[in-house]
Each structure stands twice: as C-alpha cells, then as structure tokens.
C-alpha cells in the first residue's frame, strides 16, 4: 500500500548533491511531493526534507540507496515514528469589499497571519501542519485567490 512518507536526509553542503538525491527518486519513477533544502547550523552540511508517496518496501529501498550516496550522512524516514512537521503557505487574495472582513476572521481562527496588504490584495501566511493548512485552504477557496505557494514540509523527529 502506498502512503505519504517524509524523509529527512543530512548531506554535505556541496554542488551536485541535491541532484544525486533527486535522481534516485526520478530514476525509479517516484514523484517527489515536496522538497526543501537548506544548510544546517553548521554550514558544511545541509538538511533535505522530501515527501513522497510510495510503499513501505520502496521507501526502505530508497533509504538504503540514499545511504549509499557518498555525500549522504544520515537518512531517516520520519513517518515511522512521531514527527513534528511544519510548512509555510502564502495565499494572496483579492476579496470583494464585502468579503474582506470574513477573510480577516478566517485568518484569525486558523492562526494565519496577514503579512502584506495592498489596495487590492491581502496576503496570508500560515505556518502549520498539513491538517491546519488544508483547513485554511478550504475556508479560503469560496472567496477565490490570486496566487498560492507552499514551501514544502520540514520535519524533525520528536525523540
């Protein structure tokens, strides 16, 4: 059975490492749902977080293969144990005048922040887990939106 997996990969921070990692997924025909990468506090290393839909066996194999890459130090499948996951979403909305208040109220109850206002648009930001983000999206949908972006997940294991 295929499920969503969040894989955290610690790599050396050097040119070409990301493509090596991504190649492993594309080479096996797996679609990457989301991908984030940034240096760790020690800038010699980077943390890559990938979410992908695959069977447990496939994920195990991918994790082993990832481990085989020379610049990869650590691979963990965060779906196995409890993990804290967060994602940033920004939504730009151009509400009708009469809807503006409702938008602000939605922001308030979902914990989203208004991070930019122009004469025609509001931009909301939410930093949360999948469930809350989906909730916000469903609430906003009826009012329409101009633009939308999500960062891709970052995650840490709880233990």
């Amino acid at each position, binding site marked *: 059975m295929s499920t969503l997996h969040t894989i955290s990969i610690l790599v*050396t921070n050097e040119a070409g490492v990301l493509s090596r990692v991504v190649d492993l997924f594309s080479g096996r025909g797996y679609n990457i749902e989301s991908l984030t990468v940034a240096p760790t506090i020690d800038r010699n290393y980077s943390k890559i977080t990938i979410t992908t839909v695959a069977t447990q066996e496939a994920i195990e194999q991918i994790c082993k293969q990832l*481990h085989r*890459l*020379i610049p990869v130090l650590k691979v963990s499948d965060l779906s196995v144990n409890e993990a804290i996951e967060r994602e940033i979403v920004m939504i730009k909305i151009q509400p009708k005048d009469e809807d503006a208040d409702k938008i602000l109220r939605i922001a308030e109850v979902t914990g989203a922040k208004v991070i930019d206002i122009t004469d025609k648009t509001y931009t909301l930001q939410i930093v949360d887990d999948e469930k809350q983000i989906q909730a916000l999206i469903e609430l906003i949908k009826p009012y329409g939106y101009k633009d939308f972006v999500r960062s891709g997940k970052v995650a840490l294991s709880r233990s």
Partner: protein
Amino acid sequence: MAKEMFTGAQIFLKSLEAEGVDEIFGYPGGVILNIYEALYNQDKIKHYLVRHEQAAIHAAEGYARVSGRPGVALVTSGPGACNTVTGIANAYYDGYPLVVFTGQVSTEQIGNDAFQEADIVGITRSCCKHNYLVKDVKDLARIIKEAFYIATTGKPGPVVIDMPKDVLTAKAAFEYPKEVKLVGYNPTYKGHPLQISKALKLLREAQRPVIISGGGVLQAGAHQELTKLAQLLEMPVAHTLMGKGTYPESSLQSLGMLGMHGNYWANFAVVHADVIFAVGTRFNDRITGCLKRFARDSQVIHVDIDPCSISKNVKVDIPIVGDAKNVLSAMIKELSSKPFTIDHEAKEKWLKQIDEWKQKRAIPECPSDKLSAVKVIETIYEYTKAFKPIVCTEVGQHQMWCAQMFKFDEPRRFITSGGLGTMGFGFPAAMGAAVADKNALVLNIAGDGSIQMNIQELATCMDYGLKVINCVINNGYLGMVRQWQEKLFNKHYSETKISAPDFVKLAQAYGAKGIRVEKEEDIIPALKEAMESNCSVFIDFVVENFEMVYPWVLAGQPLNKVLLSNDQKVC
C-alpha cells in the same frame, strides 16, 4: 622556503604514482593535452593507446578483474567522455574498481555549450559509484585519493573524475593525502555477531542447505573461507555467473552454475533447500527466476557488503551486512571454538537426492552436420585447461556455453559481463587481462556479433604485443536473441541474421594471425597453432546456425521449470 609548485597535469601523474598505478588505458584529445605532455616526459606510467574509449574502460576492468587492483583510464572531454559510459556502467553493475579520468572544458566555459563539452558528471551519475568535477587544482590530489578509496572499498565500483583544462594547467603544491575523511562513507565490514550466531544455528540445523556463492565472494577474496565453511557444514555450493571460481568446480559438493542457463540440479537444489545461504550476490532475476516462487519454502541467510542488495528482491530471514571474508571467517571461528553437531544423515540423503537430479542433463544436439558450438567450446576447455587460461567471453549463447562448460577451481580466471551483459566487452577486457598478467594464456570466446563491437582493438594488441586468442563462435546470428525468437516468436528471425567480415583476412590485415576451422578434427590443431603464435589470433569457428542453449528457464518462470531440449515443453 617556498613549496615547489606543480601543474594539475603533473599532480595527476604524481597522484597515480602515489597510488602505485603503473599502467593506464587511454585516448588523447584537446583538453587533456597537458597530461599527455606530462606523460611524454616520464617513464613510470605506461599508457596503452586504445582505438575506442569504450575499450579503454573495458580493458581497465579486465585489468582490475585479473589483478585485483583498480583499473585506470584517461580520456578527453565530450565525445571521449561519452564513449566511456557503457564501460563505466558495466563496471558498476558487476562491481569492479575503476578510476576514470575525463577531460573537461575550462571551468569558465562549463555550461556554455563549449566545443566538446559534455556534462559527464551528470551523464554518469546513475551508473558510477561516485563522481567528481574538480574545480580547483588544490583539490585534485585529495579527490584522486578519495576516488581510489571509494572505488576499492565497500562494494567496489567505478569512480569518475572530470578535470577541466584550466585545472590541469594551474599550479599548486603537491602533497598526497595520507588518509581520506569522508563522513558520509563508512562501509560495514564486520558482520553483526548476533546475526552470525543466528545464521550458524540455522545452518547447523539445516537438513537441505545450499550455498549460493556470488561475485562478492571473489571481490572479498573469501573463496577459501567459503570452501572451508561448506566443508565444515557439508553444504553443497551453487554459484552465480559472477561467482564462477569462488568454489572449486572440481569438488563433488559443487553444483556449478544456477539460474536461467544453470544446471538443472543446481536449480532444483535451490528450490528444494530448507536453508539458502547466499553470499555476495544481488539475487539478480537471472538466478532467481520468478521471484514470487523463489525460496518459498526456505529460510534465507544473505551476506552482502551492500545493504541495498539485502531484501531488495528476495525477502531475507537473516540479513548480515558485511564483507564476505570477514563474515565467513567469523563463522568459521565460532564453529571451531566449540564442538558442534550436524545431521550427517540428513546431509547425506540431501546430497544423494542432488546426485539423482544430476542425471538430468541437457543433451547437446546439433541440428546439422556442421560443427557444433558446444563441441568447439568443450574442446577448447579440455585442450587449454592444463595451461590455466584466463577466459573472457562476449555476450550471448557462446557466453552461456562457456559458463556451463569451463570449470574453474580458482577465482579471477573467468571474465564476463554479467549485470549489464555488454556485447563488445570481452575483447578489450581480454586485452586488459593480458596487460595485468603478461604470462597468462588469454582467451576471448566470442560471438560473431559481439566481436564486431570492439574488433578495432586488434590494432592495440598488435602495437603492444598483447596476445589474445579470439575464438569466434561464428553462427551467423545474434544467436541468443535468435534463440528467443525461435521459441517465443515463431521463428521470426527479425534482424538477427548478421554478416561478418572474413575474420581470417581481417586478422591478417591487422598483422595478426587468422585461422578458420570448419571440421571437428581441426579444432585442436588450430588451438595449437594459435598458442604457438607470438601475436594475437582470430580463430573463426564456423558452426551450426541453430544450436540452442539448454538448460533454459524461460524468463519469468520459476527455477525448476527447466527446459532441457527443443521438444520438451516444461518438466
């Protein structure tokens, strides 16, 4: 005092020297002229100028397979680099250590579609163990050190180093690093003691055990340990194509090769075993047959240095990640530390059962009165075995017949392309073998199709006095493909009939020796003449066109559905 400065080209050579490399295979071009200039001014490293870059890589692999040391090749950018890809992939799949140096356009030109630019790091990413683009001459020595380390440790494999032209002309001080620091690379050598104990318990209690010995045993130099353990526990041994020579085939406990064209009894032993002890094999589909039916009723112990190989295809009950030599020695040590019992009676019964299966053999049948390929290969084996030849093959029917007919008691004598199955591998690999062991009798048993893929290397052999005896099994067809067409596509021989030049005349045109054999009684005289020749030889064995390789497990069938002859359906 100011340190002495060297160009990248000089550092390249000094680093090879530091690695103990004295022979390389290569082909020059614009961006690596500085290296060739540096080569010109020294005599420590011998360069073999091949006729095609693919052959340089195969030759380096042949060299590595025979010597146990990494093979080294040097080629130019763009077309030169692209020509190496098949060779690199071949070494990757069979796990042999290579360090391949490619030239690259200058760093400031990279990415600008410069003349003869190719992103070889991108192109080879999925078919090598690791690769590097050197961006600063100061990194060159360290990268070379790392490359040799990575290529030769863990599961060996090819490493590519791409060297831009300006890096080769820039200068730096030279100090060859004493050690490598690679935080992300720590191959596991020692098997987990608990797993080893568990495995031993299972093996001691086994009634019908069988060992599958793969190329990893050869790589680890663990053939003696394997032999010892097999004796201690009275286990029969089947080998994979890559594992040939890891267990003495003259031994009674040897089952020979298993798999698609393996021995009937080897396949049956694996199917009926209660415990399968697999060492250094990836469980390729050519040896498992239908995966769902493989090892359905047996427990599987799997030793491999590459964690990726374990439970990839076959679900394993006791995985042991580690180097075969290390793990097998640990097992022998534990066994020898205290008395143990095994069920001799059960083992005897098991071996007797296998003996019964041994009566079932493929009966070679030659459909006409033409020379039989099987007969030719058998005769070559019988005649040359006293000389302990290194036997290379190309890919196809002749390869499988060689694997079936040639018996080896030691490793590194049988050289064939397994994982990738690369036609055109055999001849250049044989050339590399001849470089690695200058006194050995080197044979390349070739198909008439395969030999035409790298036949140009005869010129290289002639230049350097390398002697390879090419035995062309000339059946006028891409025989292995034709065999599938005969069985599975109603004898529609679509694009498999293939012509060839007159190999005798062709050999002569290169200044080599050419002999044609059409009759059985001429086989041995031709071999004699070839062995007496002081240069490379082509023997054109004109054989029957429609011979088939049996035993044969059709792709996707379980291992015990073995066909033994043309008219048999499934037994």
